[in-house]
């Protein structure tokens, strides 16, 4: 009997310990809600005139200290902490895209581990956070500081508007912008008798590729090991063939991924792949190697976002001699000549951690980061399009060429898969497109996507 009592006592101890573990405040939604409400009740939207004492905020980013932009981002953080000594900014910087996304997912799965600011590309992934009331609505802050709201151009709107996901308000502060373009090596093209000005349509581009290939020159060396490469090509070709509205049509499933329109797009990629235009080691090269090959004259074209213009090209002969130039991505249907893949590249979202001081400090950091003088200094060191209206001097010849192209663009959309409400679509579509580099046909690409959608419904 006493043994049984001892056993029961021990079991009780175990159960109590278990319950103690279960009773973690972070897993109690009721407690979370009340915390959040408290924070809201205490919210003073005048974040500039608030007193900050030993407030620590964490920012989760893709900043790369080895990149040209790295020290500039560090300057922003240091400048902010100098101006507001009561706030300490801690950084979690993970440059590799997939690792950064995975890390963010892990941190956002528990209220206690959430960073105060996250960087995102918008779309369904961010919409999930917005709809879970984890992202701070910026509207009251913009009402407090109307000049801040007015400082943004329209390029970042797609990153801050979640009305199509059922969320009213403005979420996130857009920062850099981009547009996908066609960069070319002037020397290679002239040596092969190709006039870059003649490349305006997809057919023109394919004809140029045919000529290059016949002369033993590799047109593209895409790094599809990073599966966003075909993902971007798929998005851009969609906008150039059917216009930017295709993003919403695919997102709402009005158009199917195995339908005629999409099969046509897959076939265009497959045709280029089968002729060897897109690369010689598609699954062996990543996007870094793709750029390195282009920068060293191993390929004639590079299909890439305008961030390429801002990268460190020190010591690269082709760049120093201004032999690399930018072209608008060729159209498939002339009607959509000025429709392109692009827009806001990244936005910074303040996370509602339930702590009023942290939320205010996060908003203040974003306000500082997007202030005219800070953005101007950033752009002068890293000449990339931004979502803030600034007139920056400097930049390089390539970024100026890109800016001229952007100025004429009529409509832009980002990654087409992100307009779908299912978060998995970006992985699902990119993985299916990657199978093209493993000889999949157009029908099977579409079928893979549709079958995967069914599996995840």
């Amino acid at each position, binding site marked *: 009997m*006493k*043994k049984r*009592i*001892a056993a029961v006592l*021990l079991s009780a*101890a*175990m159960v109590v*310990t*278990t319950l103690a*573990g*279960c009773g973690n405040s*972070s897993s109690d*939604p009721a407690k*979370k809600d009340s915390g959040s409400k408290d924070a809201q009740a205490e919210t003073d939207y005048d974040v500039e005139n608030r007193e900050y004492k030993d407030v620590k905020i964490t920012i989760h980013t893709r900043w790369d200290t080895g990149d040209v932009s790295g020290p500039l981002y560090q300057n922003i953080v240091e400048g902010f902490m100098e101006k507001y000594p009561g706030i300490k900014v801690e950084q979690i910087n993970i440059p590799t895209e*997939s690792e950064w*996304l*995975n890390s963010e*997912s*892990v941190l*956002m*799965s*528990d*209220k206690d581990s*959430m960073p105060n600011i996250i960087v995102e590309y918008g779309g369904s992934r961010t919409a*999930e*956070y917005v709809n*879970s*009331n*984890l992202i701070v609505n910026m509207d009251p802050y913009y009402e407090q500081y109307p000049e801040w709201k007015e400082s943004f151009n329209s390029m970042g709107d797609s990153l801050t508007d979640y009305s199509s996901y059922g969320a009213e308000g403005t979420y996130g502060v857009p920062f850099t912008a981009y547009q996908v373009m066609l960069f070319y090596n002037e020397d290679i093209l002239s040596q092969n008798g190709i006039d870059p000005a003649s490349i305006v349509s997809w057919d023109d581009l394919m004809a140029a590729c045919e000529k290059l290939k016949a002369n033993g020159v590799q047109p593209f060396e895409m790094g599809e*090991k990073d*599966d966003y490469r075909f993902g971007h090509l798929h998005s851009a070709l969609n906008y150039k063939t059917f216009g930017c509205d295709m993003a919403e049509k695919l997102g709402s499933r009005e158009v199917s991924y195995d339908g005629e329109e999409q099969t046509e797009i897959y076939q265009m990629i497959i045709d280029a792949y089968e002729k060897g235009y897109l690369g*010689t*080691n598609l*699954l*062996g*090269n990543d996007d870094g190697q793709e750029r390195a090959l282009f920068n060293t004259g191993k390929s004639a074209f590079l299909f890439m976002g305008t961030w390429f213009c801002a990268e460190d090209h020190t010591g690269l002969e082709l760049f120093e001699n201004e032999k690399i130039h930018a072209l608008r991505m060729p159209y498939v249907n002339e009607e959509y000549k000025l429709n392109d893949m692009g827009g806001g590249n990244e936005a910074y979202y303040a996370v509602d951690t339930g702590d009023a001081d942290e939320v205010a400090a996060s908003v203040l950091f974003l306000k500082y980061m997007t202030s005219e003088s800070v953005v101007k200094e950033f752009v002068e060191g890293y000449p990339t399009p931004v979502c803030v209206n600034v007139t920056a001097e400097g930049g390089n010849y390539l970024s100026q060429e890109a800016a001229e192209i952007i100025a004429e663009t009529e409509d832009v959309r980002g990654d087409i898969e992100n307009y779908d409400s299912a*978060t*998995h679509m970006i*992985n699902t579509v990119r*993985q*299916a497109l*990657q*199978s093209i*580099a*493993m000889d999949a046909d157009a029908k099977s690409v579409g079928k893979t996507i549709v079958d995967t959608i069914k*599996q*995840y419904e």
Partner: protein
Amino acid sequence: MFFSSSKYRKTFLKSMLFVLPGVAITVIFVIYPVINTFWLSLNDWNGVATSPVSWVGLNNYIKVFTSEKFWNSMLNAVYFMIGGFVVLMPVAFGMALLVTSKIRFTKFFKASYLMPVMLGTTAVGLMWTFMLNSDFGIFAQFLRAVGLGDAVINWLATPTVNIWCVVLVNEWMYAGYNMLIFAAGIVAIPGDVHDAALLDGCTGLKKVIYVIIPLCKNMFMVFSVLCVTGCLKAFDIVWAMTNGGPIDSSATPAVLLYTQGFQYKLMGRSSAIGIILLVLGLVLSVLLNNVIFKQDRE
């Protein structure tokens, strides 16, 4: 009777005090997560802290068992096991024989065999990724230099070939570690057994087959359990070399668990894979213990 003696009562309470921290740690870090994972496997959750969790019963298990990706990952785990028993075990045992034998330079051998595991998985993975690159990797360059350029393929991007490359790199990395297990068994064999074998004229390969291997049976059991459970949960080397790709062709169940959870945000399905792996690991370990190595204990 137990509690009637104050001496025993004191001893019991004291021992409980010593046991409780261990029990608490096990409950918090093992039992509770397992229970929580099992509960989550019966629900749908997108992995966002404040998002609702909805009950779906066994749906996640049905989805996992009817998924081609899961069975492909299980096949990859089987490749890992085949590699473990066919390549790793003999190599590690052979290395153990070498470092425990009375030859010169055994310290050098020990250090060099252990070097790969000391490098760390990410370093090893990256190193081999570069070596296996079909453009500039050492193998591709060597094959081209000897006129076998046609044999150069994109090893890490070709399904089945890529997982075998990862398996072999894994064996290369862990051979030294497993050598220690077998070496511990070999050095524990009493000297008089070796002397008796020598008197009976049992030397060389005969001695290995009839004396060393039977007396190291427990080490083989330890290796088998570690190998089976390790193969089921293989993650790091796969992630470092291929990320499970292209299109999940080299994904192991653990890689699939991770991607389903943190890329696809299907925490319920990811948890179901976790529970399946746990059960499978337990069943296989028990089977190895009670069926294959039972005779030895009896």
